[in-house]
């Protein structure tokens, strides 16, 4: 873990400490064609550790030579070596170390998962907020597309609407024209009928007048002498006719 710490801190110092950055990055500004964006994704989980602090890499490295129990033997051996040679002397600090170790292990075991969950929740909330914005934007854009399509359909329909309206207006105009034409026809007919009637009247009156005149003249021309002669003739004709019919009747 300490080796990893050194690694990470060296990296951090190199990438963003003021002097380190100045020494390292000045020569790297806009020199390579490689783009710094997008940043490669972070690994999902941190480095694997056994028993909380010992990195798994040590176990993996020692496995080929010493098998599964290798690192444990190494640890026990080191510990016993340091104790027996009195490189590490057990004193009151050992008890203090045991005590603070117990506190730390208790703290991590009890509060570890909830703290990790809290940290994950913070990140998830950030993502959820951005996702919400994105979803809202997408929904509103989809709605806009739909509305646009509807408007386009409406525009197509508008042509039909205009045609129908034009039709209506044309029909109205036509009706109007026909009405007026009918009216004109009637009026002209009336005028012509009147003239006709007038002419007929004239003719009739002329005819009547002429007949009356002819009758009057004929009657006036009939002298009394002629009148008597005609009456006598009529009587003789009638007698003759009577005789004829009587004869026909008896025959």
């Amino acid at each position, binding site marked *: 873990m300490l080796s990893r710490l050194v690694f990470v801190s060296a990296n951090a110092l190199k990438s963003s400490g003021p002097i380190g950055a100045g020494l390292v990055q000045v020569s790297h500004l806009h020199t390579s064609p490689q783009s710094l964006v997008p940043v490669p994704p972070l690994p999902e989980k941190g480095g694997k550790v056994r028993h909380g602090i010992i990195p798994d890499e040590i176990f993996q490295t020692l496995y080929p030579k010493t098998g599964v129990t290798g690192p444990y033997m190494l640890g026990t051996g080191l510990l016993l070596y340091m104790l027996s040679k009195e490189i590490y002397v057990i004193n009151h600090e050992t008890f203090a170390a045991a005590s603070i170790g117990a*506190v730390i292990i208790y703290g991590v075991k009890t509060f570890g998962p909830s703290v990790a969950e809290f940290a994950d929740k*913070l990140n998830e909330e950030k993502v959820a907020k951005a996702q919400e914005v994105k979803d809202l934007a997408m929904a509103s854009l989809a709605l806009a597309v739909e509305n646009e399509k509807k408007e386009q359909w409406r525009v197509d329909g508008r042509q039909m609407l205009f045609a129908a309206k034009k039709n209506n207006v044309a029909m109205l105009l036509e009706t109007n024209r026909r009405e007026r034409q009918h009216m004109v026809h009637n009026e002209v007919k009336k005028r012509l009928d009147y003239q006709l009637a007038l002419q007929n009247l004239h003719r009739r009156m002329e005819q009547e007048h002429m007949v009356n005149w002819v009758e009057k003249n004929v009657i006036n021309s009939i002298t009394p002498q002629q009148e008597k002669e005609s009456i006598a003739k009529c009587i003789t004709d009638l007698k003759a006719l009577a005789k004829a019919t009587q004869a026909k009747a008896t025959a």
Partner: protein
Amino acid sequence: MTLSFFDQFMSPVFMGIPLMALALTLPWILFPIPTARWLNNRLLTLQGWFINRFTQQLLLPLNVGGHKWATILTSLMLFLITLNMLGLLPYTFTPTTQLSLNMGLAVPLWLATVIIGMRNQPTAALGHLLPEGTPVPLIPVLIIIETISLFIRPLALGVRLTANLTAGHLLIQLIATAAFVLLPIMPTVAILTSVVLFLLTLLEVAVAMIQAYVFVLLMSLYLQENV
């Protein structure tokens, strides 16, 4: 290597080179630097959350002029809490047990608040020396008392932190020694003493965090009066 009880409070020196600067700067390595990423790992997320929340809570009662102090107060809080907590590990040196360090933190900051108050609003700053509603005959005495209280503040800040931490560490050492010495003689009593040691360590963890917070809180309070 045999230890006496006060070796842990000696300023560390290695082959004649004082290591105090290292002791003060190396703890900052434990704080990851914010990256250019939008989503970070858990440690960085928690660190960012803590710093934001703490600064927000600390600056709530301050007016806008006091917000200039956000960086120094939050970084002071992180500094003290880290030093205190790291000092609980065995064989470590806690810089905040040194009175020189704590006075070095308390006096300049306190003096800064007083000078700001005297410069920007001298009447109000001097007015703090007389609490509201004091009976007239008590006024002279009270002004003297309040002035003494004002000048005691940096001393109190520094000594409070030093005393708490030193006392805590000493207690841990003493009780650990008791447990250690009793182990071959009376194991049961040694176990009881270990239990006491465990509880004391829990208390010390709390004290470490609380003392750091109290230091920063009082500083923000003095700032509130004067800004």
